[in-house]
Protein backbone atom coordinates (compact mmCIF):
# COMPACT_ATOMS: atom_id res chain seq x y z
CA UNK A 1 0.00 0.00 0.00
CA UNK A 2 2.98 2.30 0.62
CA UNK A 3 3.92 2.14 -3.03
CA UNK A 4 0.36 2.82 -4.12
CA UNK A 5 0.27 5.86 -1.85
CA UNK A 6 3.47 7.28 -3.29
CA UNK A 7 2.37 6.52 -6.84
CA UNK A 8 -0.98 8.15 -6.17
CA UNK A 9 0.53 11.36 -4.81
CA UNK A 10 3.08 11.56 -7.61
CA UNK A 11 0.47 10.77 -10.26
CA UNK A 12 -1.47 13.99 -9.85
CA UNK A 13 1.62 16.14 -10.43
CA UNK A 14 2.76 13.95 -13.28
CA UNK A 15 -0.67 14.03 -14.91
CA UNK A 16 -0.81 17.77 -14.32
CA UNK A 17 2.23 18.30 -16.49
CA UNK A 18 1.19 15.69 -19.05
CA UNK A 19 -2.06 17.63 -19.52
CA UNK A 20 -0.02 20.62 -20.56
CA UNK A 21 1.88 18.52 -23.07
CA UNK A 22 -1.20 16.78 -24.47
CA UNK A 23 -3.88 19.48 -24.37
CA UNK A 24 -6.32 17.34 -26.38
CA UNK A 25 -6.67 14.85 -23.54
CA UNK A 26 -6.91 17.44 -20.75
CA UNK A 27 -10.40 16.70 -19.44
CA UNK A 28 -10.07 12.95 -19.66
CA UNK A 29 -6.73 12.88 -17.87
CA UNK A 30 -8.02 15.17 -15.14
CA UNK A 31 -11.08 13.01 -14.69
CA UNK A 32 -8.99 9.84 -14.55
CA UNK A 33 -6.88 11.38 -11.78
CA UNK A 34 -9.85 12.29 -9.62
CA UNK A 35 -11.33 8.83 -10.07
CA UNK A 36 -8.00 7.36 -8.96
CA UNK A 37 -8.21 9.50 -5.80
CA UNK A 38 -11.78 8.43 -5.17
CA UNK A 39 -10.75 4.79 -5.52
CA UNK A 40 -7.82 5.34 -3.17
CA UNK A 41 -10.02 7.05 -0.57
CA UNK A 42 -12.63 4.29 -0.68
CA UNK A 43 -10.00 1.57 -0.49
CA UNK A 44 -8.68 3.06 2.76
CA UNK A 45 -12.16 2.67 4.21
CA UNK A 46 -12.62 -0.84 2.90
CA UNK A 47 -9.24 -2.08 4.12
CA UNK A 48 -9.57 -0.05 7.32
CA UNK A 49 -6.03 1.02 6.71
CA UNK A 50 -3.79 2.95 9.03
CA UNK A 51 -0.50 3.65 7.38
CA UNK A 52 2.59 5.36 8.77
CA UNK A 53 5.31 5.83 6.22
CA UNK A 54 8.75 7.28 6.68
CA UNK A 55 10.40 7.99 3.37
CA UNK A 56 14.20 8.12 3.05
CA UNK A 57 16.01 7.99 6.38
CA UNK A 58 15.09 9.30 9.78
CA UNK A 59 14.86 12.90 8.56
CA UNK A 60 12.74 12.08 5.54
CA UNK A 61 9.16 12.88 4.71
CA UNK A 62 6.62 11.24 6.99
CA UNK A 63 3.15 10.31 5.80
CA UNK A 64 0.17 9.18 7.80
CA UNK A 65 -2.93 7.75 6.17
CA UNK A 66 -5.99 6.69 8.14
CA UNK A 67 -9.76 7.08 8.19
CA UNK A 68 -9.55 10.77 9.03
CA UNK A 69 -7.48 11.46 5.92
CA UNK A 70 -9.75 9.16 3.91
CA UNK A 71 -12.75 11.41 4.58
CA UNK A 72 -10.90 14.42 3.33
CA UNK A 73 -9.42 12.61 0.33
CA UNK A 74 -12.87 11.39 -0.67
CA UNK A 75 -14.31 14.89 -0.36
CA UNK A 76 -11.51 16.23 -2.49
CA UNK A 77 -12.02 13.55 -5.13
CA UNK A 78 -15.79 14.06 -5.39
CA UNK A 79 -15.63 17.84 -5.45
CA UNK A 80 -12.87 17.94 -8.05
CA UNK A 81 -14.70 15.40 -10.22
CA UNK A 82 -17.84 17.50 -10.03
CA UNK A 83 -15.94 20.67 -10.90
CA UNK A 84 -14.24 19.05 -13.89
CA UNK A 85 -17.56 17.73 -15.20
CA UNK A 86 -19.14 21.12 -14.59
CA UNK A 87 -16.46 22.74 -16.76
CA UNK A 88 -16.63 19.99 -19.39
CA UNK A 89 -18.37 22.06 -22.06
CA UNK A 90 -17.30 25.52 -20.99
CA UNK A 91 -14.24 25.53 -23.23
CA UNK A 92 -11.71 26.08 -20.48
CA UNK A 93 -8.11 25.83 -21.65
CA UNK A 94 -5.88 22.93 -20.73
CA UNK A 95 -4.02 25.32 -18.40
CA UNK A 96 -7.13 25.41 -16.23
CA UNK A 97 -7.33 21.61 -15.98
CA UNK A 98 -3.62 21.40 -15.29
CA UNK A 99 -3.99 23.75 -12.32
CA UNK A 100 -7.07 21.89 -11.11
CA UNK A 101 -5.19 18.59 -11.09
CA UNK A 102 -2.11 20.07 -9.41
CA UNK A 103 -4.31 21.73 -6.82
CA UNK A 104 -6.09 18.41 -6.32
CA UNK A 105 -2.78 16.63 -5.81
CA UNK A 106 -1.32 19.14 -3.41
CA UNK A 107 -4.51 19.17 -1.37
CA UNK A 108 -4.27 15.38 -1.15
CA UNK A 109 -0.64 15.71 -0.08
CA UNK A 110 -1.66 18.03 2.73
CA UNK A 111 -4.17 15.42 3.90
CA UNK A 112 -1.60 12.66 4.32
CA UNK A 113 1.61 14.31 5.48
CA UNK A 114 2.59 14.05 9.10
CA UNK A 115 5.34 16.60 9.55
CA UNK A 116 5.38 20.35 9.45
CA UNK A 117 7.74 20.82 6.53
CA UNK A 118 5.95 18.46 4.14
CA UNK A 119 2.79 20.26 5.14
CA UNK A 120 4.43 23.61 4.41
CA UNK A 121 5.41 22.51 0.93
CA UNK A 122 1.91 21.18 0.24
CA UNK A 123 0.29 24.37 1.50
CA UNK A 124 2.60 26.55 -0.54
CA UNK A 125 1.90 24.59 -3.74
CA UNK A 126 -1.79 24.97 -2.95
CA UNK A 127 -1.37 28.75 -2.66
CA UNK A 128 0.30 28.98 -6.05
CA UNK A 129 -2.18 26.70 -7.81
CA UNK A 130 -5.17 28.39 -6.16
CA UNK A 131 -3.80 31.81 -7.10
CA UNK A 132 -3.46 30.78 -10.74
CA UNK A 133 -7.00 29.44 -10.73
CA UNK A 134 -8.44 32.55 -9.10
CA UNK A 135 -6.62 34.78 -11.58
CA UNK A 136 -7.51 32.52 -14.54
CA UNK A 137 -9.99 34.98 -16.03
CA UNK A 138 -7.34 37.75 -15.94
CA UNK A 139 -9.70 40.57 -15.09
CA UNK A 140 -8.26 43.25 -12.83
CA UNK A 141 -10.50 42.25 -10.00
CA UNK A 142 -9.66 38.57 -10.01
CA UNK A 143 -5.95 39.36 -10.18
CA UNK A 144 -6.24 41.64 -7.19
CA UNK A 145 -8.27 39.06 -5.27
CA UNK A 146 -5.71 36.40 -6.14
CA UNK A 147 -2.80 38.57 -5.11
CA UNK A 148 -4.49 39.42 -1.84
CA UNK A 149 -4.96 35.72 -1.18
CA UNK A 150 -1.36 34.93 -2.04
CA UNK A 151 -0.02 37.79 0.06
CA UNK A 152 -2.00 36.87 3.15
CA UNK A 153 -1.15 33.21 2.92
CA UNK A 154 2.54 33.89 2.25
CA UNK A 155 2.79 36.15 5.27
CA UNK A 156 1.19 33.70 7.66
CA UNK A 157 3.27 30.88 6.23
CA UNK A 158 6.40 32.82 7.22
CA UNK A 159 5.15 32.82 10.80
CA UNK A 160 4.37 29.16 10.42
CA UNK A 161 7.93 28.48 9.26
CA UNK A 162 9.39 30.12 12.35
CA UNK A 163 7.06 27.95 14.42
CA UNK A 164 8.17 24.84 12.56
CA UNK A 165 11.78 25.76 13.22
CA UNK A 166 11.14 26.15 16.94
CA UNK A 167 9.57 22.69 16.94
CA UNK A 168 12.68 21.35 15.27
CA UNK A 169 14.91 23.14 17.77
CA UNK A 170 13.13 21.47 20.66
CA UNK A 171 12.80 17.97 19.19
CA UNK A 172 15.29 17.60 16.35
CA UNK A 173 12.37 16.56 14.19
CA UNK A 174 9.50 18.21 12.37
CA UNK A 175 6.89 15.57 13.25
CA UNK A 176 3.47 16.67 14.53
CA UNK A 177 4.07 14.90 17.83
CA UNK A 178 6.90 17.30 18.59
CA UNK A 179 4.42 20.10 19.17
CA UNK A 180 4.01 18.85 22.70
CA UNK A 181 7.56 19.50 23.87
CA UNK A 182 7.88 22.75 22.00
CA UNK A 183 7.77 26.22 23.51
CA UNK A 184 4.47 28.09 23.53
CA UNK A 185 5.62 30.42 20.77
CA UNK A 186 5.97 27.46 18.43
CA UNK A 187 2.38 26.37 18.98
CA UNK A 188 1.10 29.92 18.61
CA UNK A 189 3.01 30.58 15.38
CA UNK A 190 2.05 27.28 13.77
CA UNK A 191 -1.57 27.66 14.72
CA UNK A 192 -1.68 31.18 13.36
CA UNK A 193 -0.52 29.79 10.03
CA UNK A 194 -3.07 27.00 10.03
CA UNK A 195 -5.96 29.15 11.27
CA UNK A 196 -5.34 31.75 8.60
CA UNK A 197 -4.84 29.17 5.89
CA UNK A 198 -7.99 27.36 6.95
CA UNK A 199 -10.10 30.48 7.08
CA UNK A 200 -10.98 30.13 10.73
CA UNK A 201 -12.05 32.92 13.10
CA UNK A 202 -10.70 36.48 12.73
CA UNK A 203 -7.65 35.33 10.81
CA UNK A 204 -9.96 33.74 8.25
CA UNK A 205 -11.67 36.95 7.22
CA UNK A 206 -9.70 37.09 3.98
CA UNK A 207 -11.91 34.22 2.86
CA UNK A 208 -15.31 35.84 2.10
CA UNK A 209 -13.98 38.20 -0.56
CA UNK A 210 -11.74 35.59 -2.17
CA UNK A 211 -14.43 32.94 -2.33
CA UNK A 212 -17.20 35.23 -3.47
CA UNK A 213 -15.26 37.02 -6.21
CA UNK A 214 -13.64 33.96 -7.82
CA UNK A 215 -15.19 32.22 -10.80
CA UNK A 216 -17.96 29.75 -9.95
CA UNK A 217 -16.06 26.43 -10.31
CA UNK A 218 -13.02 27.90 -8.55
CA UNK A 219 -14.98 29.08 -5.55
CA UNK A 220 -16.62 25.66 -5.36
CA UNK A 221 -13.19 24.08 -5.10
CA UNK A 222 -11.82 26.68 -2.70
CA UNK A 223 -14.75 26.42 -0.32
CA UNK A 224 -15.28 22.71 -0.73
CA UNK A 225 -11.76 21.41 -0.20
CA UNK A 226 -8.93 23.92 -0.27
CA UNK A 227 -9.69 25.62 3.04
CA UNK A 228 -9.87 22.20 4.67
CA UNK A 229 -6.11 21.83 4.19
CA UNK A 230 -5.63 24.35 6.99
CA UNK A 231 -8.22 22.69 9.19
CA UNK A 232 -7.02 19.13 8.72
CA UNK A 233 -3.59 19.50 10.40
CA UNK A 234 -5.27 21.09 13.39
CA UNK A 235 -7.65 18.13 13.65
CA UNK A 236 -4.70 15.79 13.34
CA UNK A 237 -2.75 17.60 16.07
CA UNK A 238 -5.81 17.71 18.30
CA UNK A 239 -6.26 13.96 17.97
CA UNK A 240 -2.59 13.13 18.46
CA UNK A 241 -2.03 15.52 21.34
CA UNK A 242 -4.82 15.90 23.91
CA UNK A 243 -3.13 19.01 25.31
CA UNK A 244 -3.76 20.91 22.09
CA UNK A 245 -7.39 19.86 21.82
CA UNK A 246 -9.02 22.53 24.04
CA UNK A 247 -7.41 25.33 22.02
CA UNK A 248 -8.71 23.81 18.79
CA UNK A 249 -12.19 23.43 20.22
CA UNK A 250 -12.31 27.02 21.47
CA UNK A 251 -11.31 28.35 18.06
CA UNK A 252 -13.90 26.10 16.46
CA UNK A 253 -16.71 27.52 18.55
CA UNK A 254 -15.47 31.10 18.04
CA UNK A 255 -15.34 30.65 14.31
CA UNK A 256 -18.76 28.97 14.15
CA UNK A 257 -20.36 31.93 15.92
CA UNK A 258 -18.45 34.67 14.11
CA UNK A 259 -19.05 33.24 10.65
CA UNK A 260 -22.73 32.70 11.14
CA UNK A 261 -23.27 36.12 12.70
CA UNK A 262 -21.85 37.70 9.56
CA UNK A 263 -23.59 35.29 7.18
CA UNK A 264 -27.09 36.08 8.45
CA UNK A 265 -26.88 39.71 7.41
CA UNK A 266 -25.38 39.32 3.96
CA UNK A 267 -27.57 40.22 1.01
CA UNK A 268 -25.31 38.67 -1.60
CA UNK A 269 -25.70 34.93 -2.20
CA UNK A 270 -22.04 34.12 -2.73
CA UNK A 271 -20.88 36.19 0.23
CA UNK A 272 -23.46 34.44 2.39
CA UNK A 273 -22.04 31.11 1.33
CA UNK A 274 -18.48 32.25 1.98
CA UNK A 275 -19.24 33.44 5.51
CA UNK A 276 -21.11 30.22 6.11
CA UNK A 277 -17.91 28.38 5.18
CA UNK A 278 -16.08 30.23 7.98
CA UNK A 279 -18.77 29.09 10.37
CA UNK A 280 -18.92 25.48 9.14
CA UNK A 281 -15.14 25.11 9.44
CA UNK A 282 -15.63 26.10 13.05
CA UNK A 283 -18.07 23.21 13.46
CA UNK A 284 -15.47 20.85 12.00
CA UNK A 285 -12.90 21.99 14.56
CA UNK A 286 -15.32 21.99 17.47
CA UNK A 287 -15.46 18.20 17.63
CA UNK A 288 -12.21 16.80 16.21
CA UNK A 289 -13.30 13.15 16.42
CA UNK A 290 -16.35 13.77 14.23
CA UNK A 291 -14.59 16.32 12.03
CA UNK A 292 -13.91 14.00 9.11
CA UNK A 293 -17.52 13.15 8.33
CA UNK A 294 -18.64 16.72 8.98
CA UNK A 295 -16.04 18.05 6.57
CA UNK A 296 -17.20 15.51 3.98
CA UNK A 297 -20.84 16.58 4.13
CA UNK A 298 -19.96 20.25 4.25
CA UNK A 299 -17.57 19.96 1.31
CA UNK A 300 -20.18 18.34 -0.93
CA UNK A 301 -23.01 20.63 0.10
CA UNK A 302 -21.02 23.85 -0.07
CA UNK A 303 -19.44 23.20 -3.43
CA UNK A 304 -22.81 22.30 -4.94
CA UNK A 305 -24.27 25.49 -3.45
CA UNK A 306 -21.50 27.55 -5.00
CA UNK A 307 -22.07 25.95 -8.39
CA UNK A 308 -25.79 26.70 -8.10
CA UNK A 309 -25.34 30.26 -6.87
CA UNK A 310 -23.16 30.92 -9.90
CA UNK A 311 -26.04 29.92 -12.18
CA UNK A 312 -28.81 31.86 -10.47
CA UNK A 313 -30.02 34.88 -12.44
CA UNK A 314 -28.78 37.29 -9.79
CA UNK A 315 -26.59 37.41 -6.71
CA UNK A 316 -28.83 39.73 -4.76
CA UNK A 317 -31.43 38.07 -2.53
CA UNK A 318 -34.06 40.79 -2.85
CA UNK A 319 -33.91 40.57 -6.61
CA UNK A 320 -34.00 36.78 -6.52
CA UNK A 321 -37.04 36.84 -4.25
CA UNK A 322 -38.92 39.17 -6.55
CA UNK A 323 -38.03 37.31 -9.71
CA UNK A 324 -38.41 33.79 -8.36
CA UNK A 325 -36.33 30.86 -9.54
CA UNK A 326 -37.17 27.79 -11.56
CA UNK A 327 -38.31 24.66 -9.73
CA UNK A 328 -35.50 22.59 -11.17
CA UNK A 329 -33.10 25.11 -9.64
CA UNK A 330 -34.84 25.25 -6.34
CA UNK A 331 -34.75 21.51 -5.72
CA UNK A 332 -30.95 21.03 -5.61
CA UNK A 333 -30.64 24.32 -3.75
CA UNK A 334 -33.03 23.05 -1.09
CA UNK A 335 -31.34 19.65 -0.74
CA UNK A 336 -27.89 21.16 -0.21
CA UNK A 337 -29.19 23.86 2.15
CA UNK A 338 -31.12 21.35 4.22
CA UNK A 339 -28.03 19.19 4.49
CA UNK A 340 -26.02 22.05 5.96
CA UNK A 341 -28.88 22.81 8.36
CA UNK A 342 -28.83 19.17 9.53
CA UNK A 343 -32.25 18.16 8.24
CA UNK A 344 -32.95 14.40 8.41
CA UNK A 345 -32.80 12.39 5.14
CA UNK A 346 -29.62 14.17 4.07
CA UNK A 347 -26.11 13.31 5.26
CA UNK A 348 -25.71 16.62 7.08
CA UNK A 349 -28.08 15.27 9.70
CA UNK A 350 -25.84 12.32 10.52
CA UNK A 351 -22.83 14.64 10.67
CA UNK A 352 -24.57 16.96 13.11
CA UNK A 353 -25.66 14.06 15.35
CA UNK A 354 -22.18 12.55 15.30
CA UNK A 355 -20.70 15.92 16.15
CA UNK A 356 -23.23 16.41 18.96
CA UNK A 357 -22.01 13.20 20.58
CA UNK A 358 -18.43 14.45 20.64
CA UNK A 359 -19.05 17.90 22.06
CA UNK A 360 -18.07 18.99 25.54
CA UNK A 361 -20.81 20.40 27.73
CA UNK A 362 -19.65 24.03 27.44
CA UNK A 363 -19.66 23.85 23.68
CA UNK A 364 -23.20 22.58 23.30
CA UNK A 365 -25.04 25.82 23.98
CA UNK A 366 -22.79 27.90 21.74
CA UNK A 367 -23.05 25.46 18.86
CA UNK A 368 -26.83 25.22 19.21
CA UNK A 369 -26.95 28.97 18.76
CA UNK A 370 -24.66 28.67 15.76
CA UNK A 371 -26.88 25.95 14.28
CA UNK A 372 -29.96 28.16 14.62
CA UNK A 373 -27.95 30.88 12.88
CA UNK A 374 -27.08 28.45 10.09
CA UNK A 375 -30.76 27.61 9.64
CA UNK A 376 -31.60 31.31 9.42
CA UNK A 377 -28.82 31.85 6.90
CA UNK A 378 -29.99 29.06 4.63
CA UNK A 379 -33.64 30.01 5.00
CA UNK A 380 -32.68 32.79 2.60
CA UNK A 381 -32.00 30.12 -0.02
CA UNK A 382 -34.80 27.72 0.85
CA UNK A 383 -37.53 30.36 0.74
CA UNK A 384 -36.75 31.67 -2.69
CA UNK A 385 -40.09 31.01 -4.31
CA UNK A 386 -39.93 28.24 -6.91
CA UNK A 387 -41.98 28.82 -10.05
CA UNK A 388 -42.74 26.13 -12.57
CA UNK A 389 -42.73 26.90 -16.24
CA UNK A 390 -41.98 30.54 -15.62
CA UNK A 391 -39.92 32.70 -17.92
CA UNK A 392 -37.08 32.41 -15.46
CA UNK A 393 -36.93 28.73 -16.24
CA UNK A 394 -36.57 29.28 -19.93
CA UNK A 395 -34.26 32.23 -20.07
CA UNK A 396 -31.45 30.62 -18.08
CA UNK A 397 -29.67 28.00 -20.08
CA UNK A 398 -27.60 25.53 -18.18
CA UNK A 399 -25.05 23.13 -19.53
CA UNK A 400 -25.61 19.45 -18.92
CA UNK A 401 -22.32 19.38 -16.99
CA UNK A 402 -24.07 21.28 -14.22
CA UNK A 403 -26.58 18.49 -13.70
CA UNK A 404 -23.92 15.79 -13.74
CA UNK A 405 -22.03 17.73 -11.05
CA UNK A 406 -25.23 18.04 -9.02
CA UNK A 407 -25.89 14.31 -9.28
CA UNK A 408 -22.41 13.54 -7.95
CA UNK A 409 -22.47 16.05 -5.09
CA UNK A 410 -26.07 15.68 -3.97
CA UNK A 411 -26.01 11.94 -4.64
CA UNK A 412 -23.01 11.80 -2.31
CA UNK A 413 -25.01 13.62 0.33
CA UNK A 414 -27.91 11.18 0.06
CA UNK A 415 -25.78 8.03 -0.09
CA UNK A 416 -23.80 9.46 2.83
CA UNK A 417 -26.85 8.85 5.00
CA UNK A 418 -26.03 5.17 5.03
CA UNK A 419 -22.64 5.78 6.59
CA UNK A 420 -24.02 6.83 9.93
CA UNK A 421 -27.47 5.28 9.87
CA UNK A 422 -27.40 4.86 13.67
CA UNK A 423 -28.27 8.55 13.81
CA UNK A 424 -31.88 7.78 12.89
CA UNK A 425 -33.23 7.39 16.38
CA UNK A 426 -36.28 9.24 17.63
CA UNK A 427 -34.44 11.36 20.20
CA UNK A 428 -31.97 12.48 17.56
CA UNK A 429 -34.72 13.45 15.14
CA UNK A 430 -36.46 15.88 17.45
CA UNK A 431 -33.58 18.27 18.01
CA UNK A 432 -32.82 19.25 14.40
CA UNK A 433 -36.51 19.65 13.61
CA UNK A 434 -37.01 21.95 16.58
CA UNK A 435 -33.87 23.90 15.67
CA UNK A 436 -35.05 24.32 12.11
CA UNK A 437 -38.50 25.42 13.27
CA UNK A 438 -36.97 28.04 15.58
CA UNK A 439 -34.61 29.26 12.88
CA UNK A 440 -37.31 29.61 10.25
CA UNK A 441 -39.66 31.43 12.59
CA UNK A 442 -36.94 33.91 13.52
CA UNK A 443 -36.25 34.38 9.83
CA UNK A 444 -39.88 35.10 9.00
CA UNK A 445 -40.69 37.19 12.04
CA UNK A 446 -37.62 39.37 12.13
CA UNK A 447 -35.00 39.13 9.49
CA UNK A 448 -36.97 39.03 6.30
CA UNK A 449 -38.15 42.57 6.89
CA UNK A 450 -34.91 44.24 7.84
CA UNK A 451 -31.83 44.71 5.81
CA UNK A 452 -28.76 45.28 7.94
CA UNK A 453 -25.53 46.21 6.24
CA UNK A 454 -22.45 45.13 8.11
CA UNK A 455 -19.35 47.27 7.74
CA UNK A 456 -16.72 45.63 5.59
CA UNK A 457 -13.78 47.47 7.12
CA UNK A 458 -12.38 44.43 8.84
CA UNK A 459 -12.02 42.65 5.54
CA UNK A 460 -9.75 45.37 4.18
CA UNK A 461 -6.32 44.23 3.22
CA UNK A 462 -4.53 46.37 5.82
CA UNK A 463 -6.70 45.15 8.65
CA UNK A 464 -6.32 41.51 7.71
CA UNK A 465 -2.61 41.48 8.53
CA UNK A 466 -3.16 43.54 11.67
CA UNK A 467 -5.93 41.18 12.74
CA UNK A 468 -3.56 38.30 12.30
CA UNK A 469 -0.99 39.72 14.69
CA UNK A 470 -3.76 40.13 17.25
CA UNK A 471 -4.82 36.51 16.77
CA UNK A 472 -1.19 35.51 17.24
CA UNK A 473 -1.11 37.23 20.62
CA UNK A 474 -4.46 35.64 21.51
CA UNK A 475 -3.27 32.10 20.73
CA UNK A 476 -0.03 32.71 22.59
CA UNK A 477 -1.96 33.85 25.61
CA UNK A 478 -4.39 30.94 25.39
CA UNK A 479 -1.67 28.33 25.19
CA UNK A 480 0.27 30.02 27.99
CA UNK A 481 -2.78 30.25 30.23
CA UNK A 482 -3.61 26.64 29.62
CA UNK A 483 -0.09 25.63 30.61
CA UNK A 484 -0.32 27.55 33.86
CA UNK A 485 -3.74 26.09 34.63
CA UNK A 486 -2.34 22.59 34.15
CA UNK A 487 0.55 23.39 36.45
CA UNK A 488 -1.84 24.71 39.05
CA UNK A 489 -3.70 21.43 39.29
Amino acid sequence: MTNTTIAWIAASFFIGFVIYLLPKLDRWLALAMTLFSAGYGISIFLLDLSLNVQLLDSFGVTLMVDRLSAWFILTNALVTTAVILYCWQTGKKSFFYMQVVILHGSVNAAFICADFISLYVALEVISVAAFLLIAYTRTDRTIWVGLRYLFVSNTVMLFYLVGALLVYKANNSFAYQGLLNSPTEAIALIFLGLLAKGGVFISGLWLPLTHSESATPVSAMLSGVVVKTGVFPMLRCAMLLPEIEPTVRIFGVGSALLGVACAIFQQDSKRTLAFSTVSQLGFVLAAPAAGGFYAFTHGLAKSSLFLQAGNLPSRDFTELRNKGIGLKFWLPLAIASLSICGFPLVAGFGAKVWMGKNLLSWQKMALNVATVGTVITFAKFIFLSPQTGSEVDKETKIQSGFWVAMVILLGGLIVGNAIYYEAYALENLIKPLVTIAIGWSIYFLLLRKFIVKLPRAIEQFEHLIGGMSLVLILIFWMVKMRASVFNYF
Partner: protein
Amino acid sequence: MLEACVLATLMCGFFGIIFKQNLVMKIISMDIMSTGVIAYYVLIASRGGLYTPIASTKEVAYADPVPQAVILMLVCVMKLAKNNPTLETSVIEKNNTP
Protein backbone atom coordinates in the same frame (compact mmCIF):
# COMPACT_ATOMS: atom_id res chain seq x y z
CA MET B 1 23.03 38.15 19.96
CA LEU B 2 22.74 36.69 16.48
CA GLU B 3 19.29 35.41 17.30
CA ALA B 4 18.23 38.89 18.37
CA CYS B 5 19.47 40.30 15.06
CA VAL B 6 17.55 37.68 13.15
CA LEU B 7 14.36 38.34 15.09
CA ALA B 8 14.84 42.08 14.55
CA THR B 9 14.99 41.47 10.80
CA LEU B 10 11.80 39.45 11.05
CA MET B 11 10.01 42.20 12.95
CA CYS B 12 11.29 44.89 10.56
CA GLY B 13 9.78 42.95 7.69
CA PHE B 14 6.50 42.44 9.48
CA PHE B 15 6.13 46.10 10.42
CA GLY B 16 6.91 46.97 6.83
CA ILE B 17 4.03 44.76 5.71
CA ILE B 18 1.70 46.53 8.10
CA PHE B 19 2.81 50.13 7.74
CA LYS B 20 3.82 50.53 4.10
CA GLN B 21 0.97 51.66 1.88
CA ASN B 22 2.50 50.78 -1.45
CA LEU B 23 1.97 47.25 -2.65
CA VAL B 24 5.49 46.86 -3.99
CA MET B 25 6.90 48.03 -0.68
CA LYS B 26 4.70 45.48 1.06
CA ILE B 27 6.08 42.72 -1.10
CA ILE B 28 9.64 43.88 -0.49
CA SER B 29 8.90 43.87 3.25
CA MET B 30 7.67 40.33 2.92
CA ASP B 31 10.95 39.47 1.24
CA ILE B 32 12.84 40.98 4.17
CA MET B 33 10.75 38.93 6.53
CA SER B 34 11.49 35.77 4.61
CA THR B 35 15.19 36.66 4.69
CA GLY B 36 14.84 36.73 8.45
CA VAL B 37 13.20 33.33 8.47
CA ILE B 38 15.92 31.85 6.27
CA ALA B 39 18.63 33.35 8.46
CA TYR B 40 16.94 31.81 11.48
CA TYR B 41 17.05 28.37 9.88
CA VAL B 42 20.73 28.81 9.07
CA LEU B 43 21.37 29.94 12.64
CA ILE B 44 19.68 26.88 14.13
CA ALA B 45 21.59 24.63 11.72
CA SER B 46 24.90 26.03 12.96
CA ARG B 47 24.31 25.13 16.59
CA GLY B 48 26.22 21.86 16.28
CA GLY B 49 29.15 23.32 14.39
CA LEU B 50 30.05 25.41 11.43
CA TYR B 51 31.34 22.81 8.97
CA THR B 52 29.26 21.87 5.99
CA PRO B 53 28.22 18.24 6.34
CA ILE B 54 30.16 16.64 3.47
CA ALA B 55 31.68 13.18 3.81
CA SER B 56 35.32 13.43 4.86
CA THR B 57 37.83 11.49 6.90
CA LYS B 58 38.34 14.16 9.56
CA GLU B 59 36.15 14.36 12.66
CA VAL B 60 34.73 17.87 12.76
CA ALA B 61 31.69 19.52 14.32
CA TYR B 62 29.11 19.36 11.55
CA ALA B 63 26.35 21.83 11.00
CA ASP B 64 22.94 20.22 11.23
CA PRO B 65 22.10 19.28 7.63
CA VAL B 66 18.33 19.10 8.02
CA PRO B 67 17.49 22.80 8.35
CA GLN B 68 19.92 23.52 5.53
CA ALA B 69 18.22 21.04 3.24
CA VAL B 70 14.86 22.43 4.25
CA ILE B 71 15.87 25.99 3.62
CA LEU B 72 17.13 25.24 0.14
CA MET B 73 13.73 23.86 -0.68
CA LEU B 74 11.98 26.82 0.94
CA VAL B 75 13.94 29.31 -1.10
CA CYS B 76 12.80 27.54 -4.26
CA VAL B 77 9.18 27.42 -3.19
CA MET B 78 9.11 31.04 -2.07
CA LYS B 79 10.60 32.26 -5.32
CA LEU B 80 7.99 30.33 -7.25
CA ALA B 81 5.24 31.80 -5.18
CA LYS B 82 6.36 35.35 -5.59
CA ASN B 83 7.43 35.60 -9.19
CA ASN B 84 3.93 35.71 -10.53
CA PRO B 85 2.33 38.59 -8.70
CA THR B 86 5.34 40.92 -8.79
CA LEU B 87 5.08 41.04 -12.55
CA GLU B 88 1.57 42.32 -12.44
CA THR B 89 1.49 44.81 -9.60
CA SER B 90 1.19 47.78 -11.92
CA VAL B 91 -2.11 46.44 -13.20
CA ILE B 92 -3.46 45.68 -9.79
CA GLU B 93 -2.64 48.92 -8.08
CA LYS B 94 -4.83 50.88 -10.44
CA ASN B 95 -7.95 49.50 -8.90
CA ASN B 96 -7.05 48.44 -5.43
CA THR B 97 -10.41 47.47 -4.07
CA PRO B 98 -13.06 45.48 -5.85
